[in-house]
């Protein structure tokens, strides 16, 4: 039984990071119809900004986290002005946006490689501190990840449900023209959507790098497909769905290795479990587990 709790705890850690990444992808897709292939590399960007602060300038990890969030939010907004808005003005279609996102992913990732070195890096934190909670052992990094991730999830849920900005975002995501006619400032809301998606990507990147302990700029792409899987699971474009989808996916990935399940899947196949969930959901219930049935 302890093993089950341990796996569930690990699943919550993985799942909450995926959830934070997935909200950004889902909002951006819902509002702009962009499948942001570069989102994994937004995470990487955040992780390496934090690395520069934490290791480069010996800053505390909290300061590094703030810097990661700020810088990645700026990156998100900056790219809206430099890339996405010009593309929209030209009337770029689905394929064009897709290809542009891939180009952007290549540029971002390899700029980070060029500046941040290719060797595995780690933050200056105590990785050996382990807490024992009734048989479930969690490292300090994992506890920090759960704490920050859950606060972020609650904050985002509150922002979307209660604030004017959140309501504008959801309205745009539901029906863009109707929202514009109703007087919502589309351009402004879009910029804030990128700021939110970028900031969350910054947190998710930092946390993923933290629990990986040693990381290279390739971790972003490795996490991108699980993030897409969470988005699809929750129903593309639904922010709440993405949050729940991320948590569920994290749990499924970890629990798939449980011995009691026919010996459990070898842990190297955890990503394969995520990709299979992705494909199965798309085939069986493309509107997502929580999405409304409509023509997909």
């Amino acid at each position, binding site marked *: 039984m302890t093993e089950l709790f341990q796996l569930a705890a690990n699943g919550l850690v993985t799942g909450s990071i995926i959830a934070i990444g997935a909200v950004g992808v889902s909002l951006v897709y819902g509002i702009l119809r962009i499948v942001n292939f570069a989102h994994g590399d937004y995470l990487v960007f955040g992780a390496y900004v934090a690395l520069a602060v934490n290791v480069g300038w010996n800053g505390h990890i909290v300061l590094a986290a703030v810097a990661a969030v700020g810088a990645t939010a700026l990156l998100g907004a900056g790219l809206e002005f430099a890339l996405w808005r010009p593309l929209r003005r030209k*009337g770029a279609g689905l*394929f064009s946006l897709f290809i542009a996102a891939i180009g952007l992913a*290549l*540029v971002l*990732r390899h*700029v980070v490689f060029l500046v941040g070195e290719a060797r595995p890096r780690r933050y200056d934190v105590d990785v050996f501190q382990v807490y024992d909670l009734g048989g479930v052992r969690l490292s300090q990094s994992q506890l920090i990840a759960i704490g920050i991730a859950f606060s972020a999830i609650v904050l985002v849920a509150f922002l979307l449900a209660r604030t004017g900005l959140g309501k504008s975002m959801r309205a745009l995501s539901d029906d863009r023209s109707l929202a514009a006619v109703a007087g919502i400032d589309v351009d402004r809301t879009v910029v804030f959507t990128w700021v939110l998606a970028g900031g969350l990507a910054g947190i998710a990147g930092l946390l993923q790098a933290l629990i990986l302990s040693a990381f290279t700029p390739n971790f972003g792409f490795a996490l991108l*497909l699980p993030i897409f899987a969470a988005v699809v699971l929750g129903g593309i474009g639904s922010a709440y769905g993405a949050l729940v989808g991320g948590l569920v996916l994290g749990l499924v990935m970890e629990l798939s290795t449980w011995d009691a399940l026919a010996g459990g899947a070898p842990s190297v196949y955890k990503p394969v479990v995520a*990709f299979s969930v992705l494909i199965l959901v*798309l*085939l069986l219930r493309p509107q997502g587990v929580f999405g409304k049935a409509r023509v997909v």
Partner: protein
Amino acid sequence: MSTIASLQFWAFVGVIAGIYTILALGLQVQFGFTGLLNFGHAAFMAVGAYTMAILVVKAGWPLWGASLAAIAVAIGFGLLLGLPTLRLRADYLAITTIAFAEIVRYVAINAQGLTGGPVGTIALAGPGEAASYNRDWLEFQRSVQDGLEVVIGENATRDVTMLVLVWAVALVLLVVVEAAVRTPWGRVLKSIRDDEDAASALGKNVFAYKLQALAVGAALAAIAGLFFAFQFSFFSPGDFDPLVTFFAYTIVILGGTARNWAVPVGAVLFGVIFAGTRFFDFPPFSLLDSGERAYVRLIVIGLVLIGLVLFRPQGLLGKREEMVLE
């Protein structure tokens, strides 16, 4: 003589460009003509190369039989992937196909007994024994090389021979695909790309045509995988990572979508950017070490993709009226 001026070096670049021409031609059929956003193209290349190598080393098949079987297996994978997924909308299809490609790659890395694992096909025969699948190929290549020597003398090296062989096959395939898209079959593919509902309303079985396009593309990717395997003697799962698919897209979009003869042009340009800059030994290239150059190359490829989408969506040679990117 500096590497830049050497025939051998450019022969190598040409071989890479030839292999990518075949790979990207498959994508041209799927993406350029049919409008299918297949982001798992590299997986079919992997399936082709691995099936051939496994059949030769583990089952003792002759190379030619194994190669034909490899193409057939890749087509089978294409149908298997297409049957459930081709009904999905374009963006969902893209995500599903890339997930499929990643599953193939993870299996190739982790199913060591079948594939040799992360170190690649050199471990196919089991521990302590270096496996080789291309003895028959090398023999064949040697005989072609002997023939070439009569014509061009000592310039007929291994790479030059490969250059001749891979481009001969690429040109034949280009002619075949060009002929195919000029038939009524090809026109239906284009009509599906331009307006799926219209094609459907005219009584065309859109799903069957999409499936055929996917299968043709898979076969071409498998052929590219075979040549890749022949050229490099052994390969590993890392050779088929999603970057390879993105490279194929770069070639198709750079050359121009929906125009077959643009594929080799895109592939040669890509070959020069990708393999060529590796050996440029003058500034500013000489200021970077080889690892840094690799990153700069990929940044350049990313910028080329973004630039094309922004400023020349029809590519260098594409037709404006048949644009896939709008």
